[in-house]
């Protein structure tokens, strides 16, 4: 059975084989780079090395996301330290030739920019550095050490205590204290308990969880297993979007490898602890991100939420106490248990600890994935790290939190990013999608876009959400067609309140947020539509 000694041996062997090569070329094969044809680049590199007779001295590895997704396909060269973007297969010879000299300037991405320098990587520490399909690589990066140490040297209560001390809050969006949730499940009565990983990343514009699953799946498995040990669960489920085939493939491989090494299954680490994880595929229903709907879906039913309480912590999957956390939350667990809650809590703000991964997209120069300490300002993210908007575009708003969030205008850009501050300006942290909107975009149209999403995704169980979103959509259509009256505006405001207050679950309760935030900051665009002077179709006339 697996023990710390055995882990050391695996790590040693992996490091030795890495050391045997003078160089290592890492090619990103996560989804975005793969669609930018990184696989042919990887093949070309292998071929070129073969041609140059350097196969044994330079390893070509397939790794996860390196961050600058808009520059894909990305490759990095170690120990040279070069990072290349937009690499084509025909560039392979040049890259190989430069291994022992200076990096190829033409392809290099400057890593001294804020995009790289301002990042603090905890969740993404291994991302882009290890081969996600090799458990040995993860173990060589100190993986599964926290788990085995905890199993042999710490009680479940001590593990929970460490998570409580870290101040970690749910990264799925709502920000519920993770330690508190774990405590509740640990204390809940019941012989069978479950741990669920919510990997149903439904927010359009968010791809953090996808990157984590594709780049470092073992980190999530280790976090889930630690959670299971802490709360006393023996079975786990990962509910992952069917739209992420690569993440599913890598998770499946990771599950097989972990089971083979005795890191999942019976008597893990030669202790009494048993834990198994199964994958469950989603079906493309946004509402299944809501925990009770997700549970219904794992049970093979329509993903309809139910009123809480009882909370899943007491009455969850198949009626048993269930712990549900998001991918990024689980990805934070192993480092917390390994390095201590205090270490984690030393980052971030008073109420929001640690780091957060954001997906930067929309009208922004450096689109991609970043991990930043909580408390950084939106301006730093958008303009310093993101490099601002492409030439000729002017900043109008940044949208956070997906269809449940809001649009934040320039006036609030100096706000520190944490759960409370974002809520105070009418948006939410959400899962971490950040879309930059330029001034060519009509904000009423943006609101309509999100309302259309919520209307289609409403599960239909409760009336305020099912009918309310449809009515709001109808009203927003009138604004976009410049046929609205001032009475429509009053009705819209009223409906926002009703839907927010009376809906059953988070989908409905937050559906009015995009309307409310655009009404708050861009009211003039609604008024223009009433008077018939505004712009339609979302774009400025030339």
């Amino acid at each position: 059975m697996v023990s710390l000694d055995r882990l050391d041996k695996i790590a040693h062997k992996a490091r030795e084989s890495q050391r045997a090569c003078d160089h290592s070329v890492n090619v990103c094969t996560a989804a975005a780079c793969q669609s930018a044809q990184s696989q042919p680049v990887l093949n070309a590199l292998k071929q070129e090395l073969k041609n140059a007779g350097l196969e044994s001295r330079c390893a070509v590895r397939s790794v996860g996301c390196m961050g600058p997704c808009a520059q894909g396909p990305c490759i990095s060269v170690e120990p040279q330290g070069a990072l290349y973007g937009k690499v084509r297969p025909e560039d392979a010879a040049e890259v190989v030739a430069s291994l022992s000299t200076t990096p190829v300037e033409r392809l290099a991405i400057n890593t001294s920019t804020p995009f790289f320098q301002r990042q603090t990587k905890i969740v993404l520490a291994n991302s882009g550095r290890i081969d996600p399909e090799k458990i040995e690589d993860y173990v060589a990066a100190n993986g599964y050490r926290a788990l085995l140490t905890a199993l042999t040297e710490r009680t479940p209560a001590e593990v929970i205590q460490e998570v409580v001390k870290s101040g970690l809050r749910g990264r799925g969006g709502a920000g519920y204290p993770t330690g508190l949730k774990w405590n509740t499940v640990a204390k809940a009565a019941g012989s069978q308990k479950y741990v669920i990983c919510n990997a149903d990343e439904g927010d359009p514009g968010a791809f953090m969880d996808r990157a984590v699953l594709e780049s470092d799946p073992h980190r999530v498995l280790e976090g889930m297993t630690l959670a299971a040990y802490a709360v006393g669960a023996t079975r786990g489920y990962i509910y992952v979007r069917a739209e992420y085939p690569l993440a599913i493939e890598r998770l499946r491989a990771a599950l097989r490898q972990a089971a083979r090494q005795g890191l999942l299954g019976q008597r893990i680490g030669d202790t009494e602890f048993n834990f198994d994880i199964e994958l469950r595929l989603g079906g493309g229903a946004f509402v299944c991100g809501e925990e009770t709907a997700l549970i219904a879906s794992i049970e093979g039913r329509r993903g309809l939420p139910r009123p809480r309480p009882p909370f899943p912590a007491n009455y969850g999957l198949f009626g048993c106490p269930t712990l549900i956390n998001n991918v990024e939350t689980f990805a934070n667990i192993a480092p917390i248990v390994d390095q201590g809650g205090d270490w984690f809590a030393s980052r971030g703000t008073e109420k929001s600890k640690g780091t957060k991964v954001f997906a930067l997209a929309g009208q922004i120069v450096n689109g991609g994935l970043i991990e930043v300490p909580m408390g950084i300002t939106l301006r730093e993210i958008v303009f310093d790290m993101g490099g601002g908007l492409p030439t000729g575009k002017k900043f109008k708003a940044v949208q956070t939190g997906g269809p449940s969030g809001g649009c934040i205008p320039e006036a609030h850009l100096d706000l520190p990013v944490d759960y409370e501050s974002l809520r105070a300006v009418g948006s939410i942290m959400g899962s971490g999608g950040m879309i930059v909107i330029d001034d060519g975009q009509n904000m009423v149209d943006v609101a309509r876009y999100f309302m259309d999403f919520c209307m289609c995704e409403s599960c239909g169980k409760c009336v305020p959400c099912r009918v309310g979103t449809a009515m709001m959509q109808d009203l927003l259509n009138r604004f976009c067609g410049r046929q609205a009256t001032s009475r429509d505006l009053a009705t819209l405001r009223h409906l926002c309140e009703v839907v927010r207050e009376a809906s059953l679950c988070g989908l409905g309760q937050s559906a009015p947020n995009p309307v409310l935030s655009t009404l708050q900051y861009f009211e003039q665009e609604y008024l223009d539509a009433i008077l018939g002077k505004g712009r339609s179709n979302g774009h400025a006339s030339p």
Partner: protein
Amino acid sequence: MPIGAIKPVAPSEDKRWRIVHAAMRRNGFRRDALIETLHTVQESFGYVDDISLRYVAQSLRVPLSAAYGVITFYHFFSLKPPGQHTCVVCTGTACYIKQANQLLQCAEEKLHILPGETTPDGLVSLLTARCVGSCGIAPVVVIDGAVEGNMTPERMTAQVTRWRDGQP
């Protein structure tokens, strides 16, 4: 013999039914395996027709009404056979900001169908996705399963023409 004990037989001799059967057996023919099994059917056959749905519902002893409720609830499942080629336009926020609606409009005009439909000759199915998670390279279109970033209406048009000419 109680109704539950009747073991439904596979709709045809097609070997793919064995894969479906194996998926159900792996889950102990439990009711909660419904969605898992439907995924397997769709993966094997490309879509889930009435016959498949009946077979799966009976095998797992799920009322047909509940099974139909499930399959129509989740967008991922298709009840109609897909066209020879599929074109999925992502309509996620990042793609929306980068004019995905123009791409969709272009595809609709070139193919003379609406999203969710297949051309009458069965050549192309046009679909939309909520977000495929490749926002860094928006706007994105998934063409026959491959994600294509930074898409333009011109490239869309060229692709449709290639399909019409019998090329991939």
